[in-house]
């Protein structure tokens, strides 16, 4: 009888401590998650940086009037947009980001299969999408929003340098435009 009592007590003890350990584990986990999202706020979303990097390469190809390279980079950008993960953002930000990514993906797809005039048309809307994305994700680098008043009633794009190199006209009007805003 005593033996049975002892073993029941032991079992209970074990169960309680096990449950406690699990609870603690959960708490640790949620703490970690919070730390993680804090890190996001300090502008280190690696996947957003990859998208930005691809976008800048694409911009440079358009500056160089290189249709073929721009098309390839369009495909690259489609892949990095697909890989984007918004799970660390708030619900509102998530739906906004999903919308942005969907739109940007469509434009990147078109850039991948079009002639240069079309690529530049789509690059305009893509630039707007990427700018809106950066407003949410932030970035570790300083970016310059540049603006050309001539292309399609005025068009903006992002650049890593403040020096103007126009992706809408390329060699035809390489330095047309000005810095509109500095994004930090």
């Amino acid at each position: 009888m005593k033996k049975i009592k002892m073993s029941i007590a032991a079992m209970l003890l074990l169960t309680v401590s096990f449950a406690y350990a699990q609870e603690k584990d959960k708490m640790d986990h949620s703490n970690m998650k919070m730390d993680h999202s804090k890190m996001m706020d300090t502008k280190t979303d690696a996947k957003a940086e990859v998208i930005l990097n691809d976008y800048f390469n694409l911009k440079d190809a358009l500056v160089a009037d290189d249709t073929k390279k721009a098309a390839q980079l369009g495909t690259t950008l489609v892949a990095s947009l697909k890989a984007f993960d918004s799970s660390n953002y708030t619900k509102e930000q998530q739906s906004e980001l999903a919308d942005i990514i969907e739109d940007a993906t469509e434009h990147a797809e078109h850039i991948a299969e079009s002639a240069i005039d079309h690529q530049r048309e789509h690059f305009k809307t893509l630039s707007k999408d990427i700018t809106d994305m950066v407003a949410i994700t932030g970035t570790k680098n300083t970016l310059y929003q540049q603006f050309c008043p001539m292309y399609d009633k005025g068009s903006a794009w992002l650049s890593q340098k403040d020096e103007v190199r126009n992706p809408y006209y390329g060699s035809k009007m390489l330095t047309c435009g000005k810095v509109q805003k500095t994004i930090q």
Partner: protein
Amino acid sequence: MKIVKIIAGIFLVALVLIQFIPVDYNQNDTVPQTDFMVVHKVPEAIQKKIQVSCYDCHSNNTQYPWYNRVQPVAWFLEDHIKEGKAELNFNEWDSLSSRRKTSKLRSIIKQIESGEMPLDSYTLIHRDAKFSKEETEEIINWVTQLKDSL
């Protein structure tokens, strides 16, 4: 000469046989609440033009004249409709976010402006789908206004 006859015969038989392969017709009775014309107040002339020139490939309802029911024309068309609907479906317009709408409207303007849409292969038979110079101007002005108001 005999060989030519045999080959022609085979083609003819094949042509008859493929008529029996079923085609997935793009047809629906109802116009959903998300339709472009339901959501926006479209002037009558423009509404008609968009319906005639765009809806065959950019909605859930294609008008099928007899030649569109003959193979391999029907297959060719089926492909275009699939692609067209994936790009833009006027019936599902309101399910798009305002960012997506603006984006689509911009593309519509560019496509009509450059004469890429409606497709030449389509206007070749559908003469009334063609945009005259005035019609082009009218529709671009209207769509631009709509885009700026969103």
